């Protein structure tokens, strides 16, 4: 099969993978049930408050606070997992007198994202009117500059190590016998990248564990015992071990490949296979520690993540390796050896970029529920930044593929020193530009993997009639011959709001209709709530409910069923602040 056909076949296989439909799944720890029921009233003090999540969450990093209207803490002991249901956390509470209580919670998802929320409940029989609670901050992100920088340092050093190993033991191998010094320089760069990865990974792990535990990262004695308490911490300590194993296998593999001009000896081949196995294992860990493992089907998203990281590593490490290799080549043989290595690398880079784009598009299709979420959510915007930077890097890559590599080959066959030197100078400039851009792409990827993907509820929302909030809402929406006056007061998170819909048709109020309001959290996965609105006065349907249980964007669907007429639905996207 020709190379062109192989490329086409690869693209078709990648395309087929993309057609596998993504199923809805919980991307984050979502609060599914509470006891007492959120917004409900219980007769008599409960012994404990329990929160049931969509996944097992670690009690060590969880916060559950129960406060009364005056802000006094009512929790009487430490939080624990229910022995019968490990995904439910509970805290014992004091004897609660009649009144309203605010439950504020914060847990760490399996993919390392902090999730916070709040809800209220009342102890009866006469709790009185719901007070306006002061709610602590409901937003927390893993995408802080210091965490993103530490994550970037860990990933970039790991990717560089993998790519430099690929360049040294595969791409540049035919030229190594004549360029021992240049090969040694690549090996030194590989050692530096591995050492940096072995330092950066534990630093990131400690920093991220500190953020889970809401402590300073400098409080190492308190943080280290907690490192393996989180799923992310366990994955990254395993990654450190796997990188160390790769370092051993890679060092042996390079040391045993003593006659690079000839085929590998059996011993060198065994060591090379060992290093490749360790490299393959290393590439799987970030997917297991992040969004990919939480998506469904997990096998597909893990495979896409593996291909994406492998292709990115070969490209980035190859570029840096080529720069190091080119500067250390013996002056007399520089052009000829460059011609061999650059043309081999160009082909690998092209395949890597095709794999990067295919796996990136596949992962985006899995994570983005709607096309507008590509530009409306921070997650989508981070993808667009990656695409823009990649396009710029591709222009430079295309110059290398179509100009630099053929010129170097032509200069070698024609023994044209002037053409060879100008091509080598162009190569240095384009490679440096590409390295800068790819490094920036990895930084954008680190922001992306630190942000929660948009909720699947966004894809199920349908046509949105209006975007409203924050603050008090009065909005008139037309639908068919109907005019709906919608008001939400005060439209604040975790406090009761008055939802009211006044329906008018032909200047007359529409009476006797059934109106049901559905509330879907759009920024993260969370169960839907629905309330039936009651008619008072005629034609106006109202309900007071603390339905907006956390700050952020909410999809509000009003299902209207007028008597003797066709039912319809009006959808608003509402922003509620804490």
């Amino acid at each position, binding site marked *: 099969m020709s190379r062109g056909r192989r490329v086409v076949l690869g693209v078709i296989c990648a395309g087929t993978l993309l057609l596998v439909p993504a199923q809805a799944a919980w991307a984050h720890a979502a609060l599914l049930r509470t006891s007492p029921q959120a917004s409900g009233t219980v007769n008599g003090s409960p012994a404990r408050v329990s929160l049931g999540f969509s996944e097992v969450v670690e009690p060590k990093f969880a916060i559950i606070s129960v406060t009364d209207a005056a802000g006094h803490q009512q929790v009487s002991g430490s939080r624990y997992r229910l022995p019968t249901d490990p995904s439910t956390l509970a805290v014992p509470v004091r004897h609660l007198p009649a009144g309203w209580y605010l439950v504020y919670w914060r847990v760490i998802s399996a993919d390392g994202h902090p999730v916070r929320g709040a809800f209220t409940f009342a102890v009866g029989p006469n709790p009185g009117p719901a007070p306006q609670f002061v709610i602590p901050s409901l937003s927390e992100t893993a995408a802080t500059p210091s965490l993103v920088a530490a994550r970037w340092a860990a990933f970039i050093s790991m990717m560089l190590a993998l790519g430099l190993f690929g360049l040294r033991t595969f791409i540049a191998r035919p030229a190594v016998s004549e360029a021992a010094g240049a090969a040694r320089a690549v090996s030194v760069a590989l050692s530096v990248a591995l050492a940096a990865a072995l330092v950066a990974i534990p630093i990131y792990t400690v920093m991220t564990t500190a953020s889970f535990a809401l402590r300073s990262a400098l409080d190492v004695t308190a943080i280290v015992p907690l490192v393996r308490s989180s*799923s992310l911490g*366990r*994955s990254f300590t*395993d990654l450190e071990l796997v990188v160390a194993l790769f370092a051993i296998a890679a060092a*042996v593999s390079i040391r045993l490949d003593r006659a690079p001009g000839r085929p590998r000896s059996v011993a060198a081949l*065994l060591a090379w*296979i*060992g290093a490749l196995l360790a490299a393959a294992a*290393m590439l799987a860990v970030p997917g297991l520690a992040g969004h990919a493992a939480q998506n469904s089907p997990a096998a597909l998203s893990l495979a896409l993540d593996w291909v994406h990281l492998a292709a990115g590593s070969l490209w980035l490490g190859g570029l840096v390796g080529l720069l190091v290799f080119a500067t250390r080549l013996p002056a007399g043989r520089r052009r000829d050896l460059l011609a061999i290595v650059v043309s081999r690398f160009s082909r690998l880079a092209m395949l890597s970029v095709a794999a990067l784009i295919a796996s990136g598009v596949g992962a985006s299709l899995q994570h983005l529920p709607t096309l507008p979420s590509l530009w409306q959510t921070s997650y989508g915007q981070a993808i667009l930044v990656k695409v823009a930077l990649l396009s710029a890097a591709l222009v430079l890559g295309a110059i290398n593929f179509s100009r630099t590599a053929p010129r170097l080959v032509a200069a070698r066959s024609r023994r044209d020193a002037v053409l060879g030197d100008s091509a080598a100078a162009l190569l240095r400039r384009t490679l440096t530009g590409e390295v800068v851009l790819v490094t920036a792409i990895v930084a954008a990827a680190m922001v992306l993997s630190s942000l929660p993907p948009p909720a699947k509820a966004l894809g199920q929302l349908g046509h949105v009639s209006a975007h409203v909030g924050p603050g008090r809402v009065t909005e008139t929406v037309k639908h068919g011959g109907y005019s709906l006056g919608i008001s939400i007061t005060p439209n604040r998170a975790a406090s009761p709001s008055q939802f009211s819909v006044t329906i008018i048709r032909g200047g007359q109020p529409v009476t006797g209709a059934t109106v049901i309001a559905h509330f879907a959290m759009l920024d993260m996965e969370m169960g839907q709530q629905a309330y039936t609105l009651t008619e008072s006065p005629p034609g106006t349907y109202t309900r007071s409910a603390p339905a907006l249980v956390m700050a952020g964007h909410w999809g509000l669907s009003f299902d209207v069923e007028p008597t003797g007429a066709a039912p319809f639905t009006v959808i608003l996207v509402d922003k509620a602040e804490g």
Partner: protein
Amino acid sequence: MERPALILLAALAALAAGAAAVVVVALLARSVLG
């Protein structure tokens, strides 16, 4: 020990390191994916 034996031992150690890395990640995958 003869030099060829040392080389083979080193190669086997590298292969074992690679296999160990795969086992570590397989165990991690089992714990994450249940």
